[in-house]
């Protein structure tokens, strides 16, 4: 029996080899007891404030919205230490690993942002770190690979499958099933078997809490919509968490439409997938009719994943959140606009969310609306990719 509910409606669960179940129960038990422990919460808050640099600002766009009645705010997770929201939750997981007396961390990464966060938390807390990364991602995220190595992490290239995040996740799980006694698997997003989706949401909920208090302070009212990109879905669930019961606020998740959802070269399981069992959870998955998992596609390595966190699948099923998709082209265009007009280079992941906000604005420039976009990471890592895409 789990201590917390392992399902969100029909989605979630713990679909892993039996051998991993004790490790999942141990993690859940440690999570529940630590969250009740004031010492743990003080330690985590101290790290978030004085090491990672929280709170991050909520920035009003000065130029992007000119000529319209839309106000776009950016939640600046790009300014967090490590360059992305990922740092929030790895600090929590690293503290839990230490409490469980596990001195090795296994992680996987796509864009490298979670890898960087895992590496920095391990360097800080003196944990051994090995990170699985698909060979395709190693090529497109060289800078982050070097950052991880500088911080002492071992990068293990994954050649199986398409050499992307999905394959890295499988390899990390295989490693964990051998080494769970001494190693903690630091999953990078609000996906995977219970308790990961709940735990990651808990640690990322800081984004939503800050955003709510900041927007009330700056606008004296709630926004019309919160918009965040969704790969696995951790930044989105983090910022959505404080607004779930505010029904006047639209929660909008943006999936990678890649080359177009009609081309099959996309990563949009929520809108173009079916319910399935993959990576330890029951959720929406990109799969063939007979249940083989398809390869996803996105120009953004961080969104290149064929499944999604189970809570998003549930929010979608009950229609509390809306999920849409944005193509590579549209994301690149938003990436350029934000860089040029506001002096902020966003990660390609959150460029998808921004692109959708711009769509809402441009479709109805007269409408008075306040939109918050979660800028979940900075775009330095993506400069080479964008350069190649634009053939500059």
């Amino acid at each position, binding site marked *: 029996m789990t201590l917390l509910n392992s399902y969100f409606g029909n989605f979630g669960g*713990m679909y*892993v080899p039996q051998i991993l179940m004790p490790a999942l129960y141990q993690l859940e038990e440690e999570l529940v007891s630590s969250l009740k422990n004031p010492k743990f919460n003080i330690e985590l808050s101290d790290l978030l404030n004085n090491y990672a640099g929280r709170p991050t600002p909520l920035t009003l766009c000065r130029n992007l919205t000119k000529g319209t009645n839309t106000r776009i705010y950016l939640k600046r997770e790009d300014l967090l230490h490590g360059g992305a929201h990922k740092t929030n939750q790895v600090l929590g997981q690293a503290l839990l690993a230490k409490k469980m007396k596990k001195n090795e961390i296994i992680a996987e990464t796509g864009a490298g942002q979670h890898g960087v966060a895992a590496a920095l938390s391990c360097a800080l807390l003196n944990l051994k770190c090995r990170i699985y990364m698909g060979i395709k991602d190693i090529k497109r995220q060289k800078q982050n690979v070097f950052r991880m190595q500088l911080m002492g992490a071992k990068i293990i290239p994954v050649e199986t499958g398409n050499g992307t995040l999905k394959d890295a996740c*499988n390899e990390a799980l295989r490693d964990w099933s051998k080494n769970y006694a001494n190693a903690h698997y630091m999953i990078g997003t609000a996906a995977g078997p219970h308790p990961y989706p709940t735990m990651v949401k808990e640690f990322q909920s800081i984004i939503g809490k800050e955003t709510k208090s900041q927007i009330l302070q700056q606008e004296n009212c709630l926004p019309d919509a919160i918009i965040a990109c969704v790969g696995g879905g951790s930044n989105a669930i983090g910022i959505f968490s404080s607004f779930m019961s505010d029904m006047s606020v639209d929660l909008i998740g943006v999936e990678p439409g890649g080359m177009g959802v009609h081309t099959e070269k996309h990563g949009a399981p929520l809108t173009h997938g079916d319910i399935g069992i993959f990576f330890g959870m029951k959720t929406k998955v990109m799969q063939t009719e007979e249940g083989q*998992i398809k390869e996803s596609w996105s120009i953004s390595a961080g969104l290149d994943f064929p499944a999604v966190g189970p809570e998003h699948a549930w929010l979608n099923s009950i229609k509390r959140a809306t999920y849409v998709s944005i193509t590579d082209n549209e994301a690149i265009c938003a990436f350029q606009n934000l860089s040029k007009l506001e002096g902020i280079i966003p990660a390609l992941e959150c460029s998808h969310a921004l692109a959708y906000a711009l769509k809402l604005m441009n479709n109805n420039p007269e409408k008075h609306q306040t939109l918050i976009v979660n800028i979940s990471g900075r775009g330095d890592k993506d400069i080479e990719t964008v350069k190649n895409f634009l053939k500059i």
Partner: protein
Amino acid sequence: MNRYQTLYKKLVPFKKGCFIPFVILGDPSIDISLKIVDVLIENGADGLELGIPFSDPLADGKIIQKANLRAFSSGINVVKCLTMLHKIRKKYKTIPIGILSYANLIFQFGINNFYLKCSNINIDSILIADLPIEESYKFRQCAEINNISQVFICPPDAQQDLIEKISMYSTGYIYLLSRSGVTGTDQDIIIPPLNLINQLKRLTNIPIIQGFGISHPKQIKKIILSGVSGVICGSVIIQLIEHYWFDKKKLMEKIKNLSKSLHQSTQIVK
């Protein structure tokens, strides 16, 4: 009495163990895969464990991962696997046949529909690598309705409550893991978890079959002497397919010799 019980009863008086080979259906092609099954049975296989290829076999090591890919290249799918199983069952009526698969394939097929199809083919058991007991209720229900044995994996470090659950819910046989990790070929001596074997035996009289990493006769002798009912060997056989798939004659010769030797290692008189 099901086929596993019949097999076990046949072997126990002679204090022998059973040899159950595992191969992936359709690896390296449907025809060769069927021929491999023939050779295995002709050369000592007491039962069969057959894998339905899955794109993301996370309980498997590199050798079986590659076998899945070879099978996909040959155009295999779930329906073709069921057709193959039907052919194998028609040919070998008494041998226990178990399926190993992953949850999503069965979920997409329709859980009851899948078990019903397997029942119609006279499949004996289904083991789902990424389905722990905790998530298995619906699957167990369908197994029971369709008279299929649901097999669960017992980890070597299982605690008392899990041992009790596995003894209660696993029917047909219990798949005892040699070690943690994924499938593969180990050169090390595998030490059977004696306490665990004894605990399981106190709670159930269904066969305990050990798998993972078993690749040479010395390991098998030690395992059988420790009191388990038999061994499942997969990667060591599949490695031969990986090396010789392009030379059918040589491949069959190699599989024949290996199968004989693995089978012989299980035939120990205490």
